[in-house]
């Protein structure tokens, strides 16, 4: 047993503030356990999302000490001891209440993506190596941490013209499927705003599924778009990093 101090955002989009709590915790607890204990003992109406408590569902995203993470996979032991732990909701999306944010925008973006469209005369046989790379993308648990951290959304609020890394990953999985036949490149270039991404790789750094979002999804998509359309930033990037 030891005692920790927490600072948690309490409130709605209209009004709210960080409130301080002191809590007894045990060895092995994760941040989500601390939240649950707070709910059970001090603050039953503290709102937060969770489901699996095993890093599989992507519900419990929050900003812990300023870093976007899953609460269920962040051990208290791994955070600096004797320092107050700050837990805030994702900044990129409107706050509903406390740690729960309104992520419905993501679902709207998803709807716009042309779904899997198999070739009409497809052979449904392929080797494992043909799908290794899309299986990486399909590991995505839709925690939206990458969306949260991407400056195009977080700072520049380009929600209306930009799909964000999560959906680049999804489109990469579709585009690279061995028998998909749809063409999503025009959509990627225009509505999805792929050009806004300037490859800062912040998304990759926060992905709890360790998906190489930038290297394996975004850059290959940019290559494809650039081969068909024109993207000045990416051409510059290609020059700088001598990719051809």
């Amino acid at each position, binding site marked *: 047993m030891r005692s920790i101090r927490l600072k948690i955002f309490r409130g709605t989009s209209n009004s709210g503030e960080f409130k301080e709590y002191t809590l007894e915790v045990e060895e*092995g607890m994760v941040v989500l356990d601390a939240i649950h204990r707070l709910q059970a003992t001090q603050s039953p109406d503290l709102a937060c999302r969770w489901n699996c408590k095993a890093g*599989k569902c992507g519900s419990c995203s929050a900003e812990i000490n300023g870093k976007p993470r899953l609460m269920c996979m962040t051990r208290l032991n791994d955070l600096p001891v004797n320092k107050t732990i700050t837990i805030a909701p994702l900044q990129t999306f409107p706050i509903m209440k*406390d740690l729960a944010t309104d992520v419905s925008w993501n679902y709207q973006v998803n*709807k716009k993506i042309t779904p899997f469209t198999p070739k009409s005369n497809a052979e449904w046989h392929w080797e494992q190596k043909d799908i290794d790379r899309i299986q990486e993308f399909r590991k995505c648990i839709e925690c939206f941490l990458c969306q949260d951290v991407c400056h195009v959304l977080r700072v520049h609020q380009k929600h209306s013209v930009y799909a964000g890394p999560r959906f680049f990953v999804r489109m990469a999985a579709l585009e690279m499927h061995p028998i998909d036949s749809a063409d999503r490149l025009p959509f990627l270039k225009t509505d999805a705003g792929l050009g806004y991404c300037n490859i800062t790789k912040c998304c990759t750094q926060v992905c709890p599924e360790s998906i190489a979002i930038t290297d394996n999804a975004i850059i290959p998509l940019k290559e494809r778009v650039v081969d068909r359309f024109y993207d000045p930033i990416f051409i510059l990037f290609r020059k700088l990093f001598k990719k051809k």
Partner: protein
Amino acid sequence: MDAKYTTHEFDVLVIGAGGAGLRAAIEASANGLKVALVCKSLLGKAHTVMAEGGIAAALGTVDSRDTWQQHFADTMIGGNLANHWQMAQIHALEAPDRVRELEKWGAVFDRTTDGKGNINVRHFGGHTYKRLAHVGDRTGLELLRTLQDRGVHQGIEVFMECTVYSLLKKENRVVGAFGYFRETGSPVLFKAKSIVLATGGIGKLYRVSSNSWECTGDGFALGYLAGAELADMEYVQFHPTGMVWPPSVRGLLITEGVRGEGGVFRNNLGKRFMFDYIPPKYKDKYASTEEEANTWFQKVIVEGRKEETVKERKPPELMSRDVVARALWTEIEQGRGFEHGGIHLDIATRRSAEDIKKKLPSMYHQFKQLADVDITKVPMEVGPTCHYMMGGIKVDPETQGSTIDGLFAAGECSAGMHGSNRLGGNSLSDLLVFGRRAGLSAAEYSKKIKTFEQIDESELDQLNHEMNRPFENPKGENAYAILSDLQQVMEKGAGMYREEKGMMNCLKELDQIKKRLEKVSTEGNRMFNPGWHTALDLRNLLIVGEAITRAALIRRESRGAHTRIDFLNYSESFSKTRVIVKKSAQEMQVSSENLSQIPKDFEAELIAKNILNEVVLNQLRGKIAAH
């Protein structure tokens, strides 16, 4: 008029967006109907997302000996013949098509390595052949995401973070559902011509559980309160391998895939004890010595030889869950466990670190991140955890119709398919097979209904008032304290091992908890308030807890997941009945009815083909000794 409450009208209302609900909604909407899908979490987060090991279907892509008949037989033997045989048959027949269909919709399954590029399948407990289509150890995610993406492009209207609190009826027919949005707390009315319940399980009823918070038995309770019959409620599956340390992750599932990939159990004497626990029904099918099991492991798992070319039998670690869970429990009870009260599950000495990380990536990460344990170096410590509900809404095996008109049920909240014990992988296939059937039946039913019914506003007022009660009660006990006590009562009185006295006591304690629940109080307001949500969920958990205990009391025998210390054997008379729970004016009504039996000629055919074994059938039917 019902204008006072936000009102929606749909031909088909599907409650629950796990695999079963999504599949039902897709089918109903493909039939041209207006469909709503309601779920307590965000879309794509339902409990199904956690499923790891795979989907069982006799695809025969790896072992060409596999057939639907064998899958049927394995399911029946695994369920100790308590299954509704017809559901098991439909399931075995249709599962391969449902898996291939999922692939057509974009699921990306792991492939075979034989150069043919088919869907790969793996071993799981109780399945005679390799049979589980999978994607690493995240098969549930693949299934759910595929259905989700299919569903959203089909015009299904999704109401996320919305909890249904009550079904509404006119005579013996469902006409709608009433609930609240979790974000705002505001009430909502869905008028519907038919309803599919696909609300998942009951795991939160027990202290040590692999289930998410959503699994509060809502569908069972909603159906029960509306007058639907529940069946097989005594059969609660405890999975043998849950994490035991640290306390905060106690119960978290360790996939059976670990054993499928070669993992073995050892007690604190270093003994690989599963050989001592092989029941008669599995004597022919599993290795009797460590040597035989190791040779099988070497040939089949390490060298990847075809099983049909191997004469050794599978290791007993791969028996069905009820058998394995009891073995672990016994070892632990008799003092052969380890420091945190578990048994060792060892993969480290069996496979290379590289293989483990490749085959079981999420297990590797789960232990590394949550327990500081590197499973490529040391064994995992594991123990039984509440995992799955075999019982549920009694349904027609073909249409999934309940005993109430217009009300259908599919997935974990329905009964019959799994008997007294579910085999791993048979749930995900169940979701697809019966989810589809429920959606289809609901659609057909709705097509015949011309208009939406008027709903009596006073009934809704009454329900809304009931939901609000935790705010109006004088300040007192909060829901979390009651939940925690309820879990302890269930663990003690109607857990893995049961006996009459304990269960009678359990019923008394449940009664006391019911009284405490009437006075439960909640802080704050109706906006996204987990304390309030828990208070309302408790009603459902209590109903399910009582149903389990009452059904378990009636069944005076041990069968599958239901173990009575006071009646350890299979009973001939109970082998022919199923227990039914139903609401009556005063208290919960428990009765038994005949369990439909496999037709004689079909059984004889399977015996002739060596797919079923007559001696085993007679053991399970209590005709000859088995335990």
